[in-house]
């Protein structure tokens, strides 16, 4: 190819705001999003309500009562956090699986890209709009939980609790970002939205349900050792390839201030420790920092993969 200078003119982000606003408006008004939102809100509120019934008896004894709203389960309902871990990926996949192939199928892609914008703006705009939609839903849900807790427990949350709850909210958004980026990647790779949705859901099920169960067996198979601690560590490292594992561990460190480690507990770690004493928020964040970084890095990597694939694609529809 004969090119003296391959640098493109203008900003790649031209039109980004327009795309974001349009996509955000589409998401917030779409029937699909409303169904998903109601599903999440109703199930999560049911879990919180059940948790409140469970923890209101120990109101005076627990210094982190509000955090218990997120983590306490009451049979047959799982905890609020468990619900989120399951439903947030569904919401994210629901928003992203037809982001690009939907434009192909509606034959709008070439018309939009023939306007003075770059593909960068379209792809990034769709991602930001999806993440913003998820953030709005999660913030609303978070506020509902806090409000419900205030009304039903009659006790205001402490500063430490609010800090932990806020970090938990940010981590949940990052977790949603991973699944959104994955769904968007498949929406670029597969021309059929149905195929993209099925593959993303299949991968989600695999990583969430099957992989954590497979990880110990895989660790045994690939690590030539009988050292139990090494095998446990290896299995845990492998399990952490799943965003669900990373999210679960982060939530454990953030919402249970007594958590001192996310790996095997060694004797050296217990020396001088006051068992059951809560850690400050900063310490808990430090414990979960690799997991948090892992979630953000996975989001970035998946988005970059979508970006590269999309840039190389022929636009014919």
């Amino acid at each position: 190819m004969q090119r003296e200078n391959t640098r493109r003119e203008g900003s790649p982000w031209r039109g980004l705001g327009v795309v974001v606003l349009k996509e955000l408006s589409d998401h917030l008004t779409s029937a699909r999003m409303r169904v998903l939102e109601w599903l999440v809100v109703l199930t999560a509120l049911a879990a919180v309500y059940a948790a409140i019934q469970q923890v209101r008896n120990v109101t005076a004894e627990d210094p982190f009562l509000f955090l218990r709203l997120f983590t306490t389960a009451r049979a047959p309902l799982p905890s609020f956090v468990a619900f989120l871990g399951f439903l947030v990926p569904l919401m994210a996949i629901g928003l992203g699986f037809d982001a690009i192939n939907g434009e192909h199928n509606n034959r709008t892609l070439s018309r939009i890209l023939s306007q003075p914008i770059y593909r960068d703006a379209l792809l990034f705009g769709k991602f930001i709009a999806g993440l913003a939609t998820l953030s709005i839903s999660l913030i609303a849900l978070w506020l509902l939980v806090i409000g419900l807790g205030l009304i039903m427990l009659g006790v205001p949350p402490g500063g430490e609790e609010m800090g932990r709850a806020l970090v938990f909210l940010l981590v949940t958004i990052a977790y949603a970002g991973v699944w959104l980026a994955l769904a968007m990647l498949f929406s670029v790779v597969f021309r059929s939205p149905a195929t993209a949705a099925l593959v993303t859901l299949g991968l989600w099920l695999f990583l969430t349900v099957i992989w954590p169960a497979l990880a110990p067996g895989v660790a045994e198979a690939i690590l030539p050792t009988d050292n139990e601690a090494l095998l446990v560590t290896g299995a845990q490292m492998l399990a952490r390839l799943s965003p669900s594992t990373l999210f679960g561990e982060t939530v454990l460190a953030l919402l249970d201030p007594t958590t001192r480690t996310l790996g095997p507990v060694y004797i050296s770690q217990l020396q001088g420790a006051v068992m059951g004493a809560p850690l400050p928020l900063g310490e808990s964040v430090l414990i979960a920092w690799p997991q948090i970084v892992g979630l953000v890095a996975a989001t970035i990597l998946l988005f970059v993969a979508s970006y590269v694939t999309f840039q190389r694609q022929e636009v014919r529809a």
Partner: protein
Amino acid sequence: MSDNVIEATGLTKRYGKTTVVDHISFTVGSGEIFGVLGPNGAGKTTTILMMLGLSDISDGKVRVLGHDPAREPLAVKRRVGYLPDAVGFYDHLSAAENLHYTARLIGLPLAERDQRIAAALARVGLDDVGRKRVAAFSRGMRQRLGLAEIIMKDVQVAILDEPTNGLDPQASVEFLELIRSLKAAGVTVLLSSHLLDRVQDVCDRVALFSAGKIALLGTVAELGSQVLGGGFAVQVEAEQGPHLALRLGAIPGVRGVEEPSEGHFRLLCDRDVRPEAAAEVVAAGARLKRLAFDQPSLETIYTRYFQSVKPVEPRHAA
């Protein structure tokens, strides 16, 4: 800059070992309607996508309004309107809302948007359905909405890819009229189609594509002259006069005279010679009964051309 708004030189597109567009060169002058014609899979759409910077160029170069679409795609796309084959719009939005979205992408000032959108919709006859959702639109209405987008954008060049594909004859005629109105407004139009005869009337010049190459390039008359031996045919029916066939054959621009039956002459010529033919009939003392003008059919030219050259292998992509 020259008067040419589009200049392609040795433009080539390869997918692996398959060459889809093979070293084509052409120019499109300012204000003309240029037809990129040929069967499906001939390389028309790929050529258009390269002109818009939507597909990488494997070799050669193309300039649109003096800009390189590969390095200055925004400069090209600001001035060029594109109507893809079977254009799509967001079904859940109304026609006006779809145009509003495009207007914001273009960066049209807020103060101008409503007025320009209303004017564009009125121009294509969609003003009464501007607030209706596009989901209810027929294919013809969508095509017209696509043209409204180009009109709203106020472009210098309009690239229309198979705009009459799938339209009924009446809708096609109306659409071609709209294309003529674009030219009247000073817009250069590049029109791609595989329906040769349907668009030949509207095109000033055409490039006939075949298997990624331009087989023929010029006005319809030039191509007719080149391939059929005469660009136009003038039918003359007259009472037999002295040496009328010789007189008609002597008219400048007439390449041959056929006389299929007595008093019926068919003049093969480079231009429309009806006035001269009528004058010769009168001068010969004969009575003119009928005078008709036939433009050569692009379909015929295309078919005849490929009968005379070696068949080309079909391509796998458009």
